[in-house]
């Protein structure tokens, strides 16, 4: 139904569409970035599916300020559904296989930069943003997703359990394993990519 405001005729459907476009355009970098952290295939498709679902259910968004979190949740839902559809049987990593891993200790013991006074900080500084993504992509998705959502996107563990539709205990266990695997893969990647050779003796 059209409303007449002064001489201007405002179509609610046009208003709705305009509001959606503002939200979608504002959130594009965030959605694309999030999708790239979650997966290394079909990233753009994931964002498109998210935009389509968000557009179709835009009426359910009651408060504009909740828009960013709402649309990110739609993207995570899409990612979760895709994981289910692909139905790959992912072998859960046994905690005993990885619990001994400590990147802190490995760096101290291997001492990759013997002239450094800030060994651990220098190790992290050797990684660019794309290196971090490459390490994340070495993790099975079931471990990568909680790690990304917790420590890169800042969601609380309870929210992650709800978003991924997994019990809180499973979410916490996967976070724990994800962190250990991330530490292991950071060291392995640094060795393979030559990041540890970067520092010359003074």
């Amino acid at each position, binding site marked *: 139904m059209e409303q007449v405001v002064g001489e201007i005729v405002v179509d609610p459907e046009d208003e709705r569409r305009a509001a959606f476009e503002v939200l979608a355009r504002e959130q594009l970098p965030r959605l694309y970035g999030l999708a790239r952290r979650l997966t290394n295939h079909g990233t753009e498709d994931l964002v*498109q599916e998210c935009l*389509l679902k968000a557009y179709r259910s835009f009426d359910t968004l009651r408060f504009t300020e909740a828009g960013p979190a709402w649309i990110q949740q739609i993207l995570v839902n899409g990612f979760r559904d895709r994981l289910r559809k692909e139905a790959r049987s992912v072998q859960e990593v046994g905690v005993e296989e990885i*619990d001994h891993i400590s990147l802190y200790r490995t760096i*101290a013991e291997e001492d990759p930069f013997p002239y450094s006074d800030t060994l651990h900080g220098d190790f992290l500084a050797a990684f660019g943003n794309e290196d971090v993504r490459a390490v994340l992509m070495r993790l099975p998705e079931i471990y990568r997703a909680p790690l990304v959502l917790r*420590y890169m996107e800042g969601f609380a563990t309870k929210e992650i359990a709800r978003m991924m539709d997994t019990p809180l205990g499973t979410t916490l266990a996967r976070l724990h394993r994800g962190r250990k695997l991330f530490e292991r893969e950071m060291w392995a990647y640094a060795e393979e990519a030559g990041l540890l050779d970067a520092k010359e003796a003074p």
Partner: protein
Amino acid sequence: MTERAIPCSDAVSQLWDYLDKVLSPEDQALVEGHLAFCRRCCGELEFAKELRSFLASSVVDEVPPDVKERLERFVDEL
């Protein structure tokens, strides 16, 4: 120190959960009690904090121009 001590391996495996404050109050206290006297685990704790900040600061939300153009066109055509 708390009534029960825990070994370094237990403290280290719970450090991130300790920082996330998702441990039970008893376990939270046990880790804290361990950290009060174990210098090596304090090093692990500091590194865990560094690694968390490092992950948070690695977030880049940029869209390559060609992808941005395609996605914006997609929004227009919805």
